[in-house]
């Protein structure tokens, strides 16, 4: 299928470009570590209460560091009119959006998987229990945030104050994804069974589907006008 092929072409292109310089992933990772440091001053990292908010803390780190990655996604294309080239290419909007969303998701997952053990060490959180579920939550949560974030990255690419506009627009919209991810992650960290939180998993999947379809439907308007 053309869309699938186009998606992989774009995804591989973006990942290859990023792998060469590694600039975004390094910046995002460093920022994540800085946030972890700042959190240690905001409250007592060893207290029992911290465990109750551990899911929230972790996802805050992910979204603040991740927004750097999402911002760059289309910002990178403005140099040398690459964006015009992309739009003029035989690829329709959907593979461009999905390809970039896939590559962003990969980058964000790398960020998350590196940050997770460090978070576990700094805040004495056990994350290895229910690891399968945790990875699923990371994947679903990241995809939802990324697909919306990537579309809005395209939307704000020429807007002034782009770095501030992206979080302002994306986070209120993707709040349910965040809520679901935080709730599930906190439950997994505390070692409790995930069964009562299944509704949140459904929320994650539902939001992912809804936002992916919406983004795919609107990407042409965003890219071409």
């Amino acid at each position: 299928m053309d869309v699938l092929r186009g998606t992989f072409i774009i995804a591989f292109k973006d990942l290859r470009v990023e792998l060469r310089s590694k600039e975004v992933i390094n910046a995002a990772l460093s920022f994540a570590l800085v946030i972890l440091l700042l959190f240690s001053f905001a409250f007592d990292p060893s207290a029992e209460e911290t465990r109750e908010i551990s899911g929230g803390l972790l996802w805050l780190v992910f979204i603040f560091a991740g927004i750097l990655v999402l911002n760059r996604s289309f910002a990178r294309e403005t140099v040398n009119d690459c964006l015009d080239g992309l739009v003029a290419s035989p690829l329709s909007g959907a593979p461009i959006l999905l390809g970039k969303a896939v590559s962003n998701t990969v980058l964000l997952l790398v960020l998350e998987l590196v940050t997770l053990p460090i978070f576990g060490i700094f805040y004495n959180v056990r994350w290895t229990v229910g690891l399968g579920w945790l990875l699923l939550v990371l994947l679903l949560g990241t995809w939802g945030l990324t697909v919306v974030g990537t579309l809005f990255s395209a939307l704000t690419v020429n807007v002034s104050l782009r770095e501030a506009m992206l979080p302002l627009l994306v986070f209120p919209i993707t709040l349910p994804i965040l809520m679901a991810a935080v709730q599930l992650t906190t439950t997994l960290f505390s070692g409790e069974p995930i069964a009562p939180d299944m509704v949140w998993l459904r929320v994650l999947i539902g939001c992912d589907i809804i936002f992916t379809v919406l983004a795919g439907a609107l990407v042409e308007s965003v890219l071409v006008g």
Partner: protein
Amino acid sequence: MKNRSSAILAAASGVMLVITLYLTFLWVPMERTMGVVQRIFYFHVPPFFVAGAAILAGLVASIRFLITRDYRFDDLAVSAIEVGWVFDSINLVMGPFWARPVWGIWWTWDARLTSAFVLWLMFAGYLILRRAVDDPSARAVMCSVVVIFQAVGGVIVYMANRWWRTQHPQPVMGGGQGSGLDPRMWYVFLFSLATMLVLFGALLQTRRRLERLRREIDGLRRTVHSEA
């Protein structure tokens, strides 16, 4: 024709506002537990519904704009969002003045307040984006896309918050919010809601007129430059 409908709406909203004030302060019975403060309810809650209606209106207008590319729909969208933002602000600002004497706290993160705040942020984001883009066609397209996401996201946020917040302890709401309401209170509430909707309509028409003016100016500017 446009001016007449807007004048009628303005007059109607003025009259209804006066009636609502009378009903609120002189007609409706005193609430047993909260006393006078409870009357805030009649002016504090309807604006939230109006704001919800506003974002849905913005959603419909934005979809129709993207399909038809008729700028009158963009006028409607921006007007709905801006006026809706004002109404949501009223809701957010009045709430704490009720909460403080009744619950003892200024704010709580329950489903309704959180949703009201998220809605406010969405409106604000839209309006800031609007100002940040100069090209009228790009601006209209971008803002339409944003509203569509925000409206869908907003509905999900409201529903998700209801699940979320039921898992966490929250202050027990003092009676008066739809639980065993004296029928006279219901009448006043519904009348106030109708008043707010009419007021919304009046402000909407005014704001649309403003947007039309702006477009006329943009068009003329292009004429000036092309003839130069």
